[in-house]
């Protein structure tokens, strides 16, 4: 009875727990969303998802290399060279075995022949005679005559045998000599035949052996290096890093353009700047720290711009070494090794760029590879020259400082501090710096570090009333009320001569918030050229609450703190307040929204500070969690990206096979397939992962060049509420002059401009079609009625005349 009760309770308990799990699970599933054409949030899949655990500081071993001596940029390629060596030894054994086989076959026969001697006949005779003698002696021992005779015979036979043997030997020797001559001939013949080949093989063997030797030495070197790396790894594993001070501030990915397709950027190296640990970690694309930069050698003679006295070298840890000089702005120390050292102090960002420059004297193009580090604590930007042995001290493994951008004293007076936050450069190595508390815009410096101007400004708007009062106020009054600051930028990225920036929303003088120009695209002349042709202006969250509900972070417009642009001008921004990533195309259409900070999972963005495209993926640096979160595009985002890419180059529809009456064959995009059946049908099939055109069920080996519409249709199939997809399809119909369909899709996509364009063409078509018949009908009707009237009038007139005539009479 009791156990029954227990069972009941257990059942209830299990059901209760299960239902709680179910409830929690249901509540936790939060769907992605996007904004529709009216700016209303609607359900949508996320553009990027996190598929792997974020890279944490401890996982990446940030800081472990800081004081290690084992720093070298190396890639381990041992497996590759091992394979090559094996190949060579194989070849050499093959060659020798082959030669041995040939010789054995040819000479084996001759050596056998040499040893054959024929003497069987005589042996038989001797044996017979010996038997006769023995018989005779036995029969009649006294018949000596007979024995003697027999003995004589025997002796003569033996003599004959000896003579014969001698002759035979002689003969055999002759034969052997002859055969030897023959052998020599055969050998010569064989040699002659294979000499060329052997020579060739020998030469090959020789070169291969040389190559092998080289590779072996390389292999040995690599093995040595690998050992060094392994040692370093063991060191890294054992070294414990205190990351309590860590405060990641910036992540920069150095990309190079693909040789074939400039729309593709290939990531090369990552630069993770940490302002708390005073270091810049260089990571390879496999997320391995290859080098950590925190101190540099300072050599007065090697500075490109001689501003040695203005350079600061402090970091926040107390200084070691001998104080050499002190002046107003800086202190310099010799360290125990006897040279100046520059330590990073609260660095905020790193930036690397390779620029071309023409050497006038030699006429050759020189590539300058520079790494810029915003050394905010020292109020300067440290510039290093990479890939130049002159600026690298191999003994200590330290870079020698190439140039330092110090405070522009002609622009900023002593009350203002120069605290660089972010830096980018253009093709002419002009530097653009976002600095703290500089509200006039982005500071532009020349290559030599001379301040040029402010570019791209975030204006506040004054109300008419304020402008009126400001005009009346005296200067001292204005000074006292200068509380309206412009908003400064907080991130930027350089792409195709344009600087993309983000800033916080601007609070105007009258308290209104301008959230429409948080993202800017600044052209070389300083103007904002961001296309805002989407349904809503690119601004992060379109709908937001202005009141505090539960959490302060939920309040107000998005706080965009990072921006990144990929090879085809699609840009993503990250919102600090709600941890979301918004992706826009170059026209300003919102493509998708990803991320979020709800919940405490490791993949949520709680304090994003930097966002970078990593190929097609996105990396976000989270300051709070001290992680790098890798976002990968979802299925729909991949399709959207593909479509946008094709829209950019203007290929909207798929190129289909056409029959050319001129050649009498089928053509696909300038390729003659040679298929002659005019009535043939065509389709594409997937062959080895590629879509190939089949005409008349024959493989043409021509890959299908799909247009953007193909992808937009797939996007719309996945998400029927994706309005911008319909616009993409509409474009294709507009190009094909199918205006009715185009209108339909533009209406679905809520694009009024293009709807109007399509409709105008459609209307013109109808007018063109009906204009002549309507005009002709109208003219005929008018002419007819006129004619009818005149005829009627004439008849009436005649009648009247008659009547009047009668009346007259």
């Amino acid at each position, binding site marked *: 009875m009791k156990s029954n009760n227990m069972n009941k309770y257990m059942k209830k308990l299990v059901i209760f727990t299960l239902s709680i799990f179910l409830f929690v699970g249901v509540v936790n599933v939060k769907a992605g969303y996007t904004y529709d054409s009216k700016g209303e949030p609607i359900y949508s899949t996320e553009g990027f998802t996190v598929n792997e655990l974020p890279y944490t500081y401890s996982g990446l071993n940030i800081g472990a290399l800081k004081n290690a001596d084992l720093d070298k940029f190396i890639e381990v390629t041992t497996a590759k060279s091992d394979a090559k060596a094996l190949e060579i030894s194989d070849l050499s054994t093959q060659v020798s075995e082959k030669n041995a086989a040939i010789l054995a076959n040819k000479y084996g026969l001759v050596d056998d022949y040499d040893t054959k001697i024929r003497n069987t006949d005589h042996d038989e005779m001797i044996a017979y005679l010996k038997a006769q003698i023995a018989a005779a002696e036995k029969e009649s021992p006294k018949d000596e005559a007979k024995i003697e005779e027999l003995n004589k015979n025997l002796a003569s036979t033996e003599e004959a045998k000896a003579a014969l043997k001698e002759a035979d030997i002689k003969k055999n020797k002759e034969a052997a000599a002859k055969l030897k001559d023959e052998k020599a001939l055969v050998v010569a013949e064989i040699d002659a035949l294979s000499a060329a080949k052997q020579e060739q093989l020998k030469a090959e063997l020789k070169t291969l052996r040389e190559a092998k030797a080289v590779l072996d030495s390389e292999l040995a070197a690599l093995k040595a290096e690998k050992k060094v790396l392994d040692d370093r790894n063991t060191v890294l594993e054992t070294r414990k890093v205190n990351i309590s001070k860590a405060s990641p501030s910036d992540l920069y990915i150095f990309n190079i353009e693909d040789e074939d397709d400039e729309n593709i950027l290939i990531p090369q190296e990552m630069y993770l700047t940490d302002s708390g640990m005073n270091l810049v970690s260089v990571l390879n694309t496999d997320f391995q720290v290859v080098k950590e930069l925190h101190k540099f050698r300072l050599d007065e003679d090697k500075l490109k711009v001689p501003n040695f006295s203005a350079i600061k070298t402090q970091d926040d840890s107390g200084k070691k070494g001998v104080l050499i000089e002190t002046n107003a702005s800086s202190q310099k120390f010799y360290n125990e090794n006897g040279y100046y050292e520059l330590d990073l102090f609260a660095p905020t960002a790193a930036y690397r760029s390779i620029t071309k420059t023409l050497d006038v004297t030699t006429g050759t193009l020189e590539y300058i590879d520079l790494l810029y580090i915003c050394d905010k604590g020292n109020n300067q930007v440290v510039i290093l020259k990479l890939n130049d042995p002159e600026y690298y001290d191999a003994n200590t493994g330290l870079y020698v400082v190439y140039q330092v951008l110090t405070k522009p004293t002609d622009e900023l007076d002593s009350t203002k501090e120069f605290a660089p936050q972010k830096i980018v450069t253009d093709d002419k190595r002009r530097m653009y710096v976002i600095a703290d508390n500089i509200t006039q815009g982005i500071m532009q410096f020349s290559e030599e570090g001379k301040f040029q101007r402010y570019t791209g400004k975030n204006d506040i708007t004054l109300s008419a009333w304020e402008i009126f009062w400001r005009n009346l106020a005296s200067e001292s009054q204005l000074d006292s009320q200068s509380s309206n600051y412009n908003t400064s930028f907080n991130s930027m990225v350089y792409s195709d001569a344009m600087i993309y920036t983000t800033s916080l929303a601007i609070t105007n003088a009258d308290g209104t918030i301008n959230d429409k120009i948080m993202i800017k695209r600044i052209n070389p002349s300083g103007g904002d050229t961001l296309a805002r042709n989407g349904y809503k202006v690119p601004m992060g969250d379109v709908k937001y609450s202005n009141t505090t509900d539960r959490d302060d972070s939920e309040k107000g417009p998005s706080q965009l703190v990072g921006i990144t642009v990929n090879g085809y001008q699609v840009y993503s921004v990250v919102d600090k307040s709600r941890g979301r990533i918004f992706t826009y195309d170059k026209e300003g259409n919102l493509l998708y929204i990803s991320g979020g900070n709800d919940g405490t999972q490791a993949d949520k963005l709680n304090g994003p500070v930097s966002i970078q495209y990593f190929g097609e993926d996105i990396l976000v640096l989270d300051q709070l969690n001290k992680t790098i979160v890798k976002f990968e595009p979802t299925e729909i985002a991949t399709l959207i990206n593909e479509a946008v890419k094709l829209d950019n180059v203007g290929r909207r529809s798929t190129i289909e096979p056409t029959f050319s009456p001129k050649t009498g064959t089928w053509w696909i995009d300038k390729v003659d397939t040679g298929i002659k059946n005019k009535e043939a049908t065509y389709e594409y099939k997937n062959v080895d992962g590629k879509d190939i055109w089949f005409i008349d069920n024959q493989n043409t080996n021509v890959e299908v060049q799909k247009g953007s519409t193909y992808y937009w249709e797939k996007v719309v199939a996945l998400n029927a509420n994706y309005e911008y997809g319909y616009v993409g399809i509409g474009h294709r119909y507009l190009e094909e002059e199918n205006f009715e369909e185009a209108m339909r899709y533009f209406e679905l996509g809520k694009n*009024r401009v293009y709807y109007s364009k399509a409709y105008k063409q459609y209307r013109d078509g109808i007018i063109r079609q009906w204009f002549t018949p309507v005009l002709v009908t109208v003219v005929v009707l008018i002419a007819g009625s006129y004619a009818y009237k005149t005829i009627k009038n004439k008849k009436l007139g005649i009648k009247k005349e008659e009547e009047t005539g009668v009346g007259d009479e």
Partner: protein
Amino acid sequence: MENVQNTKKSFFKVVLDGLKKLGKFIVDDCIKLPTYILAHPLKGFEEFKRYKKGKMSVALVFVVLTILVNILSFQYNGFLVNDNNLKDLNSIEQIAYVAGAIIVVTIANWSVTTLFDGKGNMKEIFMMICYCLYPFIWANGLGILLSNILTEDEMAVYTLVIGLGVVLLCYMFFFGIISIHEYGLVQCLLTILFTIVAALIVIFACLLFFDLFQRMYGFVYTIYREITLRELLVNIL
């Protein structure tokens, strides 16, 4: 047989007469008079009031037409000017929107003009306001047509037509008040100003009432829920 024919004939005649009357009603009362008022507002409203040419039936027809045209433009306005989701179309709401506005303005104007020595009574004010809808109905009707045949560049024409409708409405209302209440210009302007204020007060009062009602309802509902949930909890435990 003859009788049947007679009745048939008379039925036909009745229908015909009815149609004739309807035609006359439409042409004379619903089109000619309002157009005349629009063209000659002072004289028109004189006839409207003194000679009792204005009819309540016409006024109600205009109200119905306004509601109809509002609903039609909600649904059938061209895509270029129409951002509405058909799911949001609520005809009751549309009716309430038009009728409520007219009632509020009528009450506001009556209450103001009673204090300001206006000569018009409430029925006249109501009819006058309804007659003022005449240009608005035309403009919106035309707007539906235009918005469907114009491109975005030409939408200025549409805006002009709709704007003209509103302007003419105000124009008629202005002269209507002068004529109905036998006011001078300054008095008329003052009256309009106070009418607006009065209308706002009426709306405010309504909102206040609804808000209070809602709060009361919410309070009662909360108590109801509290009690039921408690019972539920007791049951579970």
